[in-house]
């Protein structure tokens, strides 16, 4: 299979505009003749559903939550980047483009990233117009903060709830279209298969989570905005319901899955407290602006942090990275925390935590200033741990947070199945091997508001659509397969719950394919995962029936998909014999212990083609060319 990225050539500044001009348009009168299915209602999906309906298309929109407003985009705290240069500090579209390509460790497509940087300007304008209450200066103009290691101030924010406010903006735009009758909204409805007819994506099979009814929905195009697959690790900062079922089942129908091993681990999360732990809570990385990260010099030092004297502390980030100190990028901070814990110097009951200490900042700035900057985060910490971070250092540990990999898409955001589009975190497109802070919101909204509405028309206008309905053999076959999977899960009647399997899978992944990976460990994981998967299908216990609300059954299907995805993730990690961004292979590091990329052999996106459960997938490579930002070694020393 030849992967055609359809990436325009010529000067990068005008690629997007020329590409839009060269695409065919659907005339206003014809738009209402096309139905588009939108799965997922987060920043990408909500924005796309609303924008497509505003254009005049018929939109049928699905989410598994009880309302489109619940999507996990809502939990993003920090902010959204835009190259407005409102602060006259040297920012530009080109600089945001440059930072994103470099931050992604040179594993993203330049054309896509440049477009994202351009569109960042429009996103802020759009959100302001919708009434997103961004932080303001006394002038009434928009406030910015610096974020994620960028040297310019380009992050727009709404307190610590930026994701919530941007999502509500998209949700309200979507509700307006629902009220107008342009969007049919089906909440508590989960996509369980993709219907492919004559090689084109023509619909989906869904299960109504309240009644259990399985049915087909047909359309001219299907868009997936269903988020990332971080929950494959069981413990992550994702919402409990976040899952990979939509993208995985599309993958099994022929959509290639790209760079699954590019996962991001966030350094500042609240540590695990016990076996019952159900998820991990992120604390904004802005805390590293004033907090100092350290562990005791001695192994197994169990004294409270305030009683450990200065000369018995190891501020290991400041020691190893004198110029960036506590502000090194996420991947570097996470790996170093793991390293000191592996040495036996981790703190807290489990020994899997490091201190994030505000003592010196409180002394220097006073408690009121710290409270003003981080009050809500300190409160959250106290609520969860029962400890007062103004008095004792916080304990933090890295946690699975975001997935850069996802379904492969071309410049139009179309997957390898014609008519199947993938937007937001669900695709692999813009962040390469590592995402910068405040860039996920930008990409989700960029794809939904501006990219997809401008690219989908070309496909609709240039494709001939046969009339199809739910009685088509492909639809009936997909429905049958969904029913069969449900039946198997319910009839296994084994001994262990779905959660217990999911937790065990997560532990394998975290151990062998987490912050640091090596070939030996990955081979162990690749032996253990299929074994556990087979045991799951023999022994899982799902009570109840398929014809009612059944939360265990919902989880069971998602975990079945996670098993298959986990195997691909480890295989991809094993095949990529280099370290880059979030993918750190211990065999490939510089003498100083930093990630060593291998541009000669691995400057490509790895796109995998499904061959069957337990069968080795086929690897296709999309070579990456860097015409503007020349690959260099990232250094934060």
């Amino acid at each position: 299979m030849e992967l055609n990225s359809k990436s325009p050539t010529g000067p990068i500044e005008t690629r997007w505009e020329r590409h839009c001009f060269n695409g065919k348009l659907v005339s206003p009168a014809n738009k209402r003749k096309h139905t588009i299915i939108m799965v997922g209602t987060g920043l990408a999906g909500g924005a796309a559903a609303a924008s497509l309906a505003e254009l005049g298309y018929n939109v049928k929109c699905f989410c598994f939550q009880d309302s489109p407003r619940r999507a996990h985009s809502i939990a993003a705290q920090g902010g959204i980047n835009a190259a407005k240069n409102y602060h006259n500090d040297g920012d530009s579209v080109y600089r945001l483009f440059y930072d994103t390509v470099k931050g992604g460790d040179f594993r993203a497509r330049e054309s896509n990233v440049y477009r994202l940087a351009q569109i960042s300007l429009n996103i802020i304008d759009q959100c302001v117009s919708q009434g997103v209450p961004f932080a303001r200066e006394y002038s009434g103009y928009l406030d910015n903060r610096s974020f994620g290691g960028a040297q310019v101030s380009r992050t727009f924010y709404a307190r610590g709830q930026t994701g919530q406010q941007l999502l509500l903006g998209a949700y309200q735009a979507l509700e307006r279209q629902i009220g107008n009758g342009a969007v049919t909204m089906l909440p508590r409805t989960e996509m369980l298969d993709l219907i492919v007819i004559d090689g084109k994506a023509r619909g989906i099979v869904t299960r109504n989570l309240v009644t259990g009814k399985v049915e087909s929905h047909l359309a001219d195009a299907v868009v997936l905005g269903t988020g990332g697959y971080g929950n494959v690790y069981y413990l992550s900062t994702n919402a409990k319901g976040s899952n990979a079922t939509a993208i995985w089942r599309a993958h099994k129908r022929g959509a290639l899955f790209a760079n699954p091993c590019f996962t991001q681990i966030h350094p500042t999360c609240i540590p695990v407290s016990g076996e019952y732990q159900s998820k991990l809570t992120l604390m904004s990385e802005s805390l590293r602006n004033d907090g100092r990260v350290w562990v005791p010099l001695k192994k197994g030092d169990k004294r409270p942090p305030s009683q450990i004297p200065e000369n018995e502390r190891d501020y290991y980030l400041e020691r190893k990275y004198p110029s960036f100190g506590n502000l090194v990028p996420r991947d570097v901070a996470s790996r170093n925390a793991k390293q000191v814990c592996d040495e036996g110097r981790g703190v807290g009951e489990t020994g899997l935590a490091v201190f994030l200490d505000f003592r010196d900042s409180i002394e220097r700035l006073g408690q009121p200033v710290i409270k003003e900057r981080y009050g809500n985060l300190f409160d959250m910490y106290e609520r969860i741990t029962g400890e007062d971070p103004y008095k004792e250092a916080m304990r933090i540990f890295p946690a699975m947070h975001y997935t850069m990999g996802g379904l492969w898409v071309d410049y139009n955001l179309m997957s390898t199945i014609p008519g199947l589009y993938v937007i937001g975190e669900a695709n692999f497109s813009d962040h390469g091997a590592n995402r910068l802070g405040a860039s996920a919101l930008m990409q989700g909204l960029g794809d939904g508001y501006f990219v997809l509405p401008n690219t989908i028309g070309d496909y609709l206008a240039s494709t001939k659509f046969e009339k199809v309905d739910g009685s088509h053999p492909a639809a009936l076959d997909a429905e049958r397969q969904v029913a069969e999977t449900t039946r198997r899960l319910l009839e296994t009647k084994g001994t262990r719950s779905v959660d217990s399997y999911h937790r065990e899978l997560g532990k394998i992944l975290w151990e062998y394919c987490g912050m640091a990976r090596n070939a030996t460990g990955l081979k162990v994981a690749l032996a253990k995962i299929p074994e556990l998967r087979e045991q799951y299908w023999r022994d899982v216990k799902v009570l109840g029936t398929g014809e009612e609300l059944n939360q265990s059954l919902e989880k069971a299907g998602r975990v079945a998909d996670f098993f298959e995805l986990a195997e691909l993730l480890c295989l991809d990690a094993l095949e990529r014999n280099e370290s880059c961004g979030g993918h750190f292979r211990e065999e490939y590091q510089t003498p100083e212990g930093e990630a060593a990329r291998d541009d000669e052999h691995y400057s490509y996106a790895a796109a995998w083609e499904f061959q069957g459960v337990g069968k080795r997938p086929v690897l296709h490579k999309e070579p990456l060319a860097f015409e503007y930002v020349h690959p260099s070694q990232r250094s934060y020393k």
Partner: protein
Amino acid sequence: MRIILHIWRQRNAGDPGRMVRYELPNVNQEMSFLEMLDVLNEDLIGRNEDPVAFDHDCREGICGTCGCMVNGMAHGPLPGTTLCQLHMRHFKDGDELYLEPWRAKAFPVIKDLMVDRGAFDRIIAAGGYISAATGSAPDGNAIPVPKEDAENSMDAAACIGCGACVAMCPNASAALFTGAKIAHLGLLPQGQPERARRAMAMVAQAKEEIFGSCSNIGECEAVCPKEIKLEVIARMNRDFIQASLTGRM
């Protein structure tokens, strides 16, 4: 510690439902409330009993999915806290807790502790937005917003749509929810053109959904996990009355 739970069990909308007693002998005080329910459910599955259905998603207190009555208090006893952010250290050994779903005619029970809050979405669809179609926006800084207005607007916009206000109100009124959106948008210059229409349409829809009227009791404010103030209701009433009388702001 030992916790005794009395949980509302209702198989589906047609089932009359009843309270069922469960005993958890080993609750760790570091657990969140929902993690305690996870443990109960694992236990129930082990005994081949139907696990308790409850809504939850982000478990960070922001998505608004979770919530139930705990001893008659929406989201439990801790102020400004959603159920998922409530930890068991706030209870003591031997406590008996009564868990019930939100009770309101406009929020029909789906199963156990889960209710249908679709009425909230329909109130937003009626007018809880600014009609700014994608692509039509001027530069972000073309519309200055006084800092204080932005802050007040943000206070109201913090609503997570969980429904605790309705569940706690003796009238099952959605005034705090509706008022929060009207205040969020009405405090911003961008929200002015549609302000009158918005208040009329949203209030009418709330009535249509059979939420009760507000009689200024204030239980909603007391249990709101995001501490939305009663002022938003005053603002809603003012906008509604002015719009009803003059048709404009």
